[in-house]
C-alpha cells in the first residue's frame, strides 16, 4: 500500500488522497467558520450585557485595577525606553538631513499615532490578556461557568461586562501615559544627552501635532481595548470547544498561548486598517 502510494502510480489512490486533502481543507474551513461565528455571538452577548441592568460599579473598578493600574509599571518602563530609543535613532537619522530640530515632532508623532497605542496594547495583552484567558479557561474547566449559568447568573454580565468596560477605559489612559513618558524619554536622550535645542524639541512638537493625530491615537486605543478583551475572554470562555484539546492544565496553557498570538496579530492588522482609514 505504502509503496504504491509513494510511487503514485495508482489513479484510484491519487483521487483518494485528493479526497483527503479536500476533506481536511473543508473540515478546517468549517471549524474556523464555526469559531468565527461563536466569537461574533460572544461579542454580541457581551455588548448586550453592558446595557442591561443592574449596573455595578465595584466589579468594574476591580477590573480597571487589574487591567489598568497594575499594568502601569510595565507601561512606564516600556514607554520610557521606547521614547529614549526613538530619541537616539531619530537623532542620528535626522542629522543626516541636518534637521535635528525636528526630533521633537518625530518622536511625538510616532508615539501618538503608532507606537503608543500598539505597544501599550501588546503590553496589556502580555500582562492582562493572558491572565484573562487563563482565568476564564480555568473557570470553564472546573465547571464554574456552568455553575453560574445554573444559578441563573448571566456569565456575560457577571464575568465579561466589567472586563470589557475596564479594557475600553484603561487602554486610552495607559496609552496616554505611554505617550507622555515616551516624549520625555526622547527629550532625555535628545536634549539631555545629544544636545538638541530644548525649545526646538517642544516647539516642533507643538506645531506639528494636531488634533487629528491625537484622535487617531484615541480611536486606536479604544478599538484595541475592545479587541484584547474580546479575543482573550472568548478564547477562555470557549476553551472546551477548542479543537487542539481544551482540557486540563495543558489545554489552558495552549489556549492562552493561542489567545496571546491571535490578539497580538489582530492588533497589528487593525492598526494598519485604522491608519489606512483615518489618514
Amino acid at each position: 500500500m505504502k509503496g504504491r502510494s509513494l510511487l503514485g502510480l495508482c489513479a484510484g489512490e491519487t483521487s483518494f488522497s485528493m479526497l483527503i486533502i479536500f476533506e481536511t481543507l473543508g473540515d478546517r474551513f468549517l471549524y474556523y467558520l464555526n469559531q468565527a461565528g461563536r466569537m461574533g455571538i460572544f461579542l454580541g452577548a457581551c455588548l448586550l450585557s453592558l446595557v442591561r441592568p443592574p449596573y455595578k460599579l465595584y466589579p468594574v473598578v476591580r477590573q480597571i485595577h487589574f487591567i489598568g493600574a497594575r499594568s502601569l509599571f510595565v507601561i512606564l518602563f516600556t514607554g520610557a525606553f521606547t521614547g529614549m530609543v526613538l530619541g537616539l535613532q531619530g537623532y542620528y537619522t535626522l542629522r543626516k538631513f541636518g534637521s535635528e530640530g525636528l526630533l521633537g515632532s518625530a518622536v511625538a508623532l510616532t508615539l501618538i499615532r503608532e507606537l503608543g497605542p500598539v505597544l501599550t496594547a501588546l503590553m496589556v495583552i502580555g500582562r492582562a490578556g493572558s491572565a484573562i484567558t487563563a482565568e476564564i479557561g480555568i473557570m470553564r474547566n472546573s465547571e464554574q461557568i456552568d455553575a453560574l449559568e445554573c444559578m441563573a447568573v448571566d456569565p456575560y454580565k457577571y464575568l465579561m461586562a466589567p472586563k470589557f468596560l475596564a479594557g475600553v477605559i484603561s487602554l486610552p489612559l495607559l496609552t496616554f501615559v505611554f505617550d507622555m513618558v515616551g516624549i520625555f524619554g526622547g527629550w532625555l536622550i535628545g536634549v539631555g544627552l545629544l544636545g538638541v535645542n530644548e525649545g526646538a524639541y517642544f516647539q516642533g512638537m507643538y506645531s506639528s501635532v494636531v488634533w487629528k493625530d491625537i484622535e487617531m491615537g484615541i480611536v486606536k486605543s479604544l478599538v484595541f481595548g475592545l479587541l484584547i478583551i474580546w479575543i482573550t475572554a472568548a478564547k477562555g470562555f470557549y476553551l472546551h470547544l477548542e479543537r487542539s484539546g481544551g482540557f486540563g492544565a495543558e489545554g489552558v496553557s495552549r489556549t492562552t498561548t493561542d489567545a496571546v498570538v491571535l490578539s497580538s496579530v489582530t492588533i497589528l492588522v487593525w492598526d494598519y486598517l485604522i491608519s489606512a482609514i483615518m489618514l
Partner: protein
Amino acid sequence: MDDSKEEIAIELVGVEKSFGRQKVLKGLDLRVPVGKTTVIVGPSGQGKTVILKHMLGLVKPDRGEVRVFGKDIGRISRRELKELRTSFGVLFQNAALFDSLTVFDNVALPLRERTRMKEEEVRRIVDEKLALMDLEGSGEKFPAQISGGMRKRVGLARALVLNPKVVFFDEPTTGLDVNKSNEIYRLFHKTQAKLQYTAFIVSHDVPKIFKLADYVALIHEGTIVECLPPEEFQLAKNPRVRAFVEETMGPIYSSQEEERGFYGFHEKA
C-alpha cells in the same frame, strides 16, 4: 413508577445525544416526580452526568424532549430558561466553587446577583446556611484551603441558599470517606425535610443511596432499564437490574426466592 397520581417535575422523552461518533443516550425516558428523591445509578461512562446536564439545559438533546415543569427546555428562550433555573439548585461533582472567592462570598453570590437584598440580609442568610452545614467560622477561607468534604458542604449551602424547588446532586459523595459521606447524607436528609425540595441524584454509592431514594433508576447503554422504588428495585426480576444489584450489594440480597428458601430451610430445621 406510579405515574398517574404524581406531579412530574422533570420528564425526559426519547432523548438521544451523541458526542462525535459516540452515541451516549439512545432514546432515554425518565420522570422525576415532585417532592421525591430520584436516584440514577449505573456504571461510570454511561451518561449519568449527561442526563443531568440535559435537565439543567446545559446540553441540548439531538432528538427528544426535556420537559421541566411541563416546558420543553430545548425550545424556550434564554430568558425563560433563566427564569426556570431560578428554581434550581445544583451540587456539582467537584462542587464547582468559585475558587477566587471566599466560602462566604461563594454562598452569597446567588443572593447578591439574583436578588436585591441588603448586605445585612445577605449576611444573615449566608450565616444561617453555613451554620446549617456545620461550617461556622469557615466563611473567610478560600475553597483551596478547605477539605473535600467541606467543599461539598459549601456547594450544598450554595445550592440551597435561594430555597430551590429542585436540587440536583452530581455524585455528592464521590471521593469522600464513609464518615464524610454519611455527613452529606445526613445534611441532605435534614435539608430536604426542612425545604421540601425535589431531588435528583446521580450516584455510585449503592446500597447506601437506596435509603434516601424514593425511586431508583438504572441506566444501561444509554437507556433506562428500570425506574422503581428501592425495595422493588432490589428485588426486580429484570436480569440487568439483578446483575447490577448483585454486583454492587453482593449475592445475599440476590432474590426474594432465595431468601424465602433460606428462611424455609431454617423452619424445616
